[in-house]
């Protein structure tokens, strides 16, 4: 309690400013200073959010988006960690794949949709695979770096004590690379959300991205804002929730991406 009170006393602006802004917004669009067609009152948006939640619309779209994020993240994480570890361990593979990664990685994932839809059946599978592309590269690259930055001395010490093959891998290399792998996974999960939503905008009829885009096309502005709030909550949950989870479950694993 005391800690909370002290935090509030020091950071009251951080709490007061969003409340003040919402109040100002409410007042401005109620009096017509802001065009209510573009900036509906926060209370109206909240009411819409409540309606869409109660009639199940938001739940079903959110569930679809979450399932897609889960599937594409699992795909990206499995392949990314495996290939990243292999690239970290074998120099030849790393040298060979580096130029390929360098060219492909900066291309926005949405653009892979046409390419992916040539290879796998269009629809759900294409959507999930496309969303996995950027996360895959990110996770593979951070995992490779994780293996590469392990202290040479640690590896040599392990070799001197007779660790070889699988033992060297599970006892030294994997734990050494773990912080980077976690950072890659966290960033990759964030990217999965971004790309799933973007691909839903382009090519899906269900899911939060689709709901947002369709609401725009029929100019249901309140629904747009309500959907946006849900996407933002999802983003916050994925990025801050995962960071908190790691601190809780794996306190000894530092997050090298923390800045």
């Amino acid at each position, binding site marked *: 309690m005391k800690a909370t009170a002290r935090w509030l006393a020091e*950071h*009251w*602006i*951080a*709490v007061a*400013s*969003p409340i003040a802004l919402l109040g100002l917004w409410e007042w401005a669009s109620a009096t017509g200073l802001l065009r209510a067609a*573009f900036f509906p009152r926060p209370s109206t948006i909240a009411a819409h959010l409540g309606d869409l939640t109660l009639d199940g619309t938001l739940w079903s779209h959110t569930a679809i988006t979450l399932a897609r994020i889960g599937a594409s993240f699992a795909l990206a994480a499995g392949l990314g960690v495996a290939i990243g570890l292999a690239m970290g361990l074998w*120099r*030849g593979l790393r*040298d*060979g*794949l*580096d*130029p*390929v990664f*360098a*060219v*492909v*990685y*900066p*291309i*926005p994932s*949405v*653009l892979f*949709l*046409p*390419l992916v839809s*040539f290879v796998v059946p269009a629809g759900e599978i294409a959507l999930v695979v496309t969303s996995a592309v950027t996360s895959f590269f990110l996770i593979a690259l951070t995992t490779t770096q994780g293996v590469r930055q392990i202290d040479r001395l640690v590896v040599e010490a392990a070799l001197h004590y007779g660790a070889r093959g699988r033992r060297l891998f599970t006892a030294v290399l994997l734990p050494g690379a773990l912080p980077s792998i976690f950072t890659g996974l966290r960033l990759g999960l*964030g990217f999965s*959300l*971004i*790309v799933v*939503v*973007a691909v839903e*905008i*382009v090519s899906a009829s269900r899911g939060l*991205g689709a709901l*947002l*885009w369709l*609401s*725009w096309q029929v*100019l249901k*502005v309140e629904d*747009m804002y309500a959907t*946006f709030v849900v*996407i*933002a909550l999802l*983003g*916050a949950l*994925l*990025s*801050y929730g995962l960071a908190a989870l790691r601190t809780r479950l794996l306190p000894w694993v530092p997050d090298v*991406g923390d*800045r």
Partner: protein
Amino acid sequence: MAVLVPTAALILWELCSRLAIVSPRYFPAPTTIGWVLADRLAAGDLGSELAVTLTRLAFAFVLAAVPAIPLGLLMGIARPVRDLVEPYLAFIFPVPKITLLPFLLIILGVGEPAFVLTGSSSAFFQIVISTLGGVQTMDPRLLDVGRNYGAHGARLFWKVILPAALPAIFTGLRLGLGLALVTLVAVEFIAAKSGLGHLVFRHWQMLSTPEMYAAFALIGALGLVLTRGLRAVQARVLAWQDEIGV
């Protein structure tokens, strides 16, 4: 290996496509794509789409960087400002910036300002956060030394804080430029009627795959040049500093 593997992959692709092991309709041979790329570049229409994307990128980047750096610095040195802005930063930063597009489209209308600002927003938040991080993580001993030598106020800021934050600011600019490009190309793919992103979309719809791959290759090359180029500039300009961040 760095030359061998990509070359081998390209040759394999070429053979598979020529021998129709994979459908050449969907996977045209790399040489075909190369010819189309050269042809379209010579004809000038690919170049003009590239110019459209680059112009949007330049506007988006400048519109992001110019307010973001001072804001990040101000947040770093003045806590009330940080408390004031941080809630919004924390709320918007994890959101896919492409979702801002429909809002900007209804507010500004369908057109360049909405496209550019969507790209700009993704760079803006990244640059603010990197800049803020640069000020927050600077070695406090530097501040102490600066103060001991009598630097206060503006002098402390220009001589100590800003130089210390510079590597982080540069990293923010580099990451921001990359994000702006990614977001812009996605916006072009989704909503615009010009630019490299739209080119991929249009040729996908028309199934003119060699042109699609040509645009694709150009986007990859652009991303590569921008990220590698800025990294080289950073290593040059800030040679005395280790890089901060990813």
